[in-house]
């Protein structure tokens, strides 16, 4: 199973630059789909229809119309804003979000960079997003933006700990930080997936990871950074047009990243649930994307079902509930590994 990217594009600098653009082929249509899906999911959960007119069939063209509107908007930079940092912040946020795609194995033959420290790398680059959000909040020179940015930073830094501890339990079982190795370790049938091993500890691990990842993607019930009713729009209050679109794009692409990691770590990644049936490099892409999309749907489902946490409840959940449970859990998995191999 060769890596088809390096096969066709080579390992030279231009081939690498070209291959680094490949995930965009997924992200852009995915974000359009998600914008439509979010409108429709929210509508149906509230017993409404949602957009029905644009493009006739269930308003399928609504996100395209929205995107064209955003692209045409005037480029506004507030007078009191710090111009340089204001322009730089969305770029930094996008870079941080996009960099994670380099280490996601889309199929046995399709991974940007098969790093030995893949999952560790993904945790690390999310730090750049935090800095970008802080920069956006500060550069806007707006109290809501600043408060939103501070909350985001506090939230992301706190929830990184239970998320990393949960990931560590999986890494301990597999014995590798490479996401490709983690996928390989779960090949075969449905019951070979990580979520079913070391029962019930991997269930707990998955639950901790999923809750923490909701917070990392700033989704409800953890959408404190944006909290419309308190902060107008949080760190991107002053952003409009194209720059706002970049924040929006990154938020949705981050939702997919955390969902893809959840499916890689616990649900076999690109492995087919039916043994060798429907498996292979091409089917691998299908399985990973559909598993990822399922968790994206779950995130939307939760958003329109649950109310928002308060800031203190948010911190309580991370430090006093998830982190201790994750520590006990990692100890239990370690004990299991020592006693039963």
């Amino acid at each position, binding site marked *: 199973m060769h890596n088809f990217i390096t096969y066709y594009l080579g390992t030279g600098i231009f081939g690498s630059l070209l291959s680094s653009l490949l995930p965009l082929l997924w992200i852009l249509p995915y974000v359009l789909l998600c914008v439509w899906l979010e409108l429709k999911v929210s509508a149906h959960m509230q017993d409404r229809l949602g957009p029905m007119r644009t493009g006739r069939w269930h308003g399928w063209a609504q996100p395209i119309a929205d995107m064209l509107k955003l692209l045409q908007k005037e480029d506004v930079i507030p007078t009191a804003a710090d111009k340089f940092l204001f322009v730089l912040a969305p770029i930094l946020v996008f870079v941080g979000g996009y960099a994670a795609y380099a280490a996601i194995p889309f199929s046995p033959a399709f991974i940007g960079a098969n790093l030995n*420290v893949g999952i560790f790398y993904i945790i*690390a680059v999310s*730090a*750049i997003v*935090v800095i970008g959000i802080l920069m956006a909040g500060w550069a806007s020179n707006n109290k809501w933006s600043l408060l939103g940015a501070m909350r985001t930073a506090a939230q992301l*830094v706190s929830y990184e700990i239970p998320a990393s501890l949960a990931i560590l339990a999986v890494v301990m079982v597999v014995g590798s930080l490479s996401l490709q190795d983690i996928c390989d370790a779960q090949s075969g049938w449905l019951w070979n997936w990580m979520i079913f091993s070391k029962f019930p500890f991997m269930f707990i691990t998955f639950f901790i990871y999923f809750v923490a990842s909701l917070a990392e993607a700033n989704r409800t019930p953890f959408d404190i950074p944006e909290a419309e009713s308190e902060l107008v729009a949080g760190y991107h209050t002053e952003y409009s047009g194209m720059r706002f679109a970049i924040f929006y794009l990154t938020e949705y692409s981050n939702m997919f990243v955390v969902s893809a990691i959840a499916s890689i770590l616990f649900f076999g990644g690109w492995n087919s649930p039916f043994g060798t049936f429907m498996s292979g490099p091409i089917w691998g892409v299908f399985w990973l994307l559909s598993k990822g999309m399922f968790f994206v749907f779950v995130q939307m489902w939760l958003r329109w079902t649950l109310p928002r946490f308060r800031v203190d409840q948010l911190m309580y959940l991370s430090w006093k509930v998830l982190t201790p449970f994750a520590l006990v859990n990692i100890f239990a998995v370690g004990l299991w590994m020592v006693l039963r191999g």
Partner: protein
Amino acid sequence: MNMNWYDLTFYVFAALTIISAIGVVFARNIIYAAFSLLFAFFGVAAIYVLLAADFIAITQILLYVGGILVLIIFGVMLTSRAYDVEAKHGLLQIVPAVFVVGAIAGTLIGVLTTTKWPVTNSLPYEETAKPIGALLMTQFVLPFELASVLLLVALIGAVMIARRDRVRKG
């Protein structure tokens, strides 16, 4: 012409590191200094990658950018009116400064000129995470554990200072 892409990438990241480090020192606004630090850390991480030290590179990003830098920016933003305060740039305490800077510069130049810098062609890439983990748990287990105890002490100390009032009240 023995300049290849590898060298070029190195010089790009080296320049990025040095320019942002200069930015950190000379920025008039403390926020600009903090954000320049991001690019300095990032450049250093890139140089680690070019040296095939992937684990160290990612630890650099995770700890320095994700931990220390976020805390610095957080602290600066929480300080009231931190944006309006200009960093001091005047000449203060010239005589001690000359001594300290001279000593550091002398040491660095000494090390730079006396060390034999091994120049090899690009080394075959090897996994580093596993050997580092194994060494930390066997040969260097005592310093590793001591460092973790030290961090724990610092953590508890910080909480004690932050909650001092509440503890006294009861």
